[in-house]
């Protein structure tokens, strides 16, 4: 084992994911402790363009038609070869729709311990967020080479960005002839709906909505406020709102001036994508809901009682 830290660069359609910069920031801090280098692993894509602001000592670029678009099978296959050859101290990925599964497969394949939901690693200890953000856990970083799947919270995106482009090294193409998954095409999100990422005011509804019929109350409130309704995963899963309104890890990140979080507990999957909001007001009957740790204002009332009262108060304030 050497002391280098690998970071898997996650990119889709020419865009590096924010979590990659978070992982690079973590890697930089870890590399200071280990005395190793930060090596960004980049599969496919335009290496010069994608690498330009990565805070890494070296970018290891592997180019192959099989790696042109992400599949777990191909990424895990290519990483297996690199990890075996270079034996890094740690491999950092995002705990995302890409990194989580790559890390899982590699952990089973290579017998490397895996820490997921990781917020930070410092001084040989990790801290991670579980139970929808209601619990933090800590422990020692395993002594052997380790896989770490990062979530936001410990580092800022800017900390993983550099002004100067790192050196790009091209790595030989591994044998990926046994890949069993083929990328076919991208399917664009449904269009024709409003774009929640451009709204000034968002009324976010969660599990506390209880029933699709109650959506009308949220729509009424959003209309009074001049905003739009968006939702956390359970509401979209129930089919009460389309995926275009989903705020979260597999939905959209939003940055409104006001985010009214109604009946949303504040699981990391959701909160990670609302941190850009200028002000969050949270309403939840559960005093332990993690959303209250993020919101500037909170109220412990039932959203179903509050929505009509708030719509009325807004209309009154507007003189209507």
């Amino acid at each position, binding site marked *: 084992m050497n002391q280098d830290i690998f970071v898997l660069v996650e990119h*889709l*359609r020419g865009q590096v*994911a924010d979590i990659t910069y978070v992982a690079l920031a973590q890697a930089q801090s870890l590399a200071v402790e280990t005395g190793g280098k930060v090596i960004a692993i980049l599969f496919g894509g335009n290496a010069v363009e994608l690498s330009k602001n990565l805070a890494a000592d070296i970018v290891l670029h592997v180019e192959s038609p099989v790696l042109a678009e*992400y599949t*777990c099978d191909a990424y895990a296959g290519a990483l297996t070869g690199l990890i075996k050859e270079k034996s890094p101290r740690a491999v950092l990925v995002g705990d*995302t729709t890409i990194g*989580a599964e790559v*890390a*899982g*497969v590699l*952990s*089973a*394949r290579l*017998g490397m311990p*895996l*820490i*997921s939901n990781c917020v930070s690693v410092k001084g040989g200890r*990790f801290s991670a967020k579980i*139970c929808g*953000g*209601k*619990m933090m*856990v*800590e*422990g*020692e970083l*395993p002594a052997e080479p*380790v896989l770490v799947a990062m979530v936001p919270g410990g580092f800022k995106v800017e900390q993983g960005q550099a002004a100067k482009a790192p050196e790009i090294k091209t790595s030989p193409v591994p044998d990926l002839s046994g890949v*069993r*998954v083929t*990328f*076919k095409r*991208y*399917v664009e*999100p449904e269009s024709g709906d409003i774009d929640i990422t451009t709204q*000034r005011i968002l009324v976010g509804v969660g599990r506390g909505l209880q029933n699709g019929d109650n959506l009308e109350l949220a729509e009424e409130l959003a209309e009074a*406020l001049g905003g739009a309704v968006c939702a956390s995963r*359970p509401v*979209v899963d129930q089919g009460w709102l389309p*995926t*275009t309104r989903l705020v979260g890890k*597999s*939905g959209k*990140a939003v940055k409104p001036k*006001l985010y009214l979080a109604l009946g949303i507990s504040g699981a990391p999957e959701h909160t990670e994508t609302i941190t850009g909001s*200028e*002000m969050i*007001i949270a309403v939840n009957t*559960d005093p*332990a809901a993690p959303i209250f740790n993020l919101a500037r*204002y*909170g*109220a412990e*009332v039932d959203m179903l009682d*509050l929505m009509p*009262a*708030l719509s009325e*108060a*807004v209309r009154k304030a*507007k003189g209507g």
Partner: protein
Amino acid sequence: MKIVVPVQLVPDLVEELVVDKSGKALDLDTVRWIISEPDDHAIEQAILMKEKDGGEVIVLAPDFEGADDVLFAAAAKGADRLVKITGDFEGGLNAHALARALHPLVKDMNPDLVLTGVQTHNGLDGPVGALLAEYLQIPYIGYVSNVSVQGNKALVSKDYPGGLKAEMEVSLPAALGISSAESAPRYVPISKIRMVMKTSKVEDQDVGDLDPSGAAVVTRMSPPESAERATMITGKVDDVAVKIVAIIQEQGLL
């Protein structure tokens, strides 16, 4: 088409979570166990596929309090075989231990597809589906919200941020981590579950000693210490509404 669905039970986050005396784990006496939500979607997806193309659905659950209820509810939805995994889960059951325990059982079942929920909220060592897939030497795709089988291949839709999806083709057998089923998990009335309890059988499968290696050891668990907590607005609902409006006005948003 044979579909195996290993599910997990997780603490209900609606209940208060209490750390036990060791300071390293949840106080299990206070935990109410429920099916992990993505696993509920995995069952639904399997049933939808069975309804469309026929086949067999086998649901497995570790022997936690409430496991029988989860299994019988799956049978009431249309699952054909119910398997409860028994063993010593006293020290908790991490994803690696569960995937290793499932491996020989699922291998013997010889499935075309393994569907699991893509994640659990209390997992600290990766998705069970990805680990199990690798132990079974079959491909894995996670965050899947749509599956259709054509011959010995499946066409799946994988979710990416921003509502973007990717269509991928995978050769069978394969394991898929389901984020959401094509339609919301169906509701089954208690009366139907009670009926099923009389006619269905839960098979016990003892997995012996567990091997939890591959996960980091937790030495401390605590609720998050927040640097800042929301300023709470108190009063009756109407008062809260008026105060919120005042705050919004202060921000110049009304």
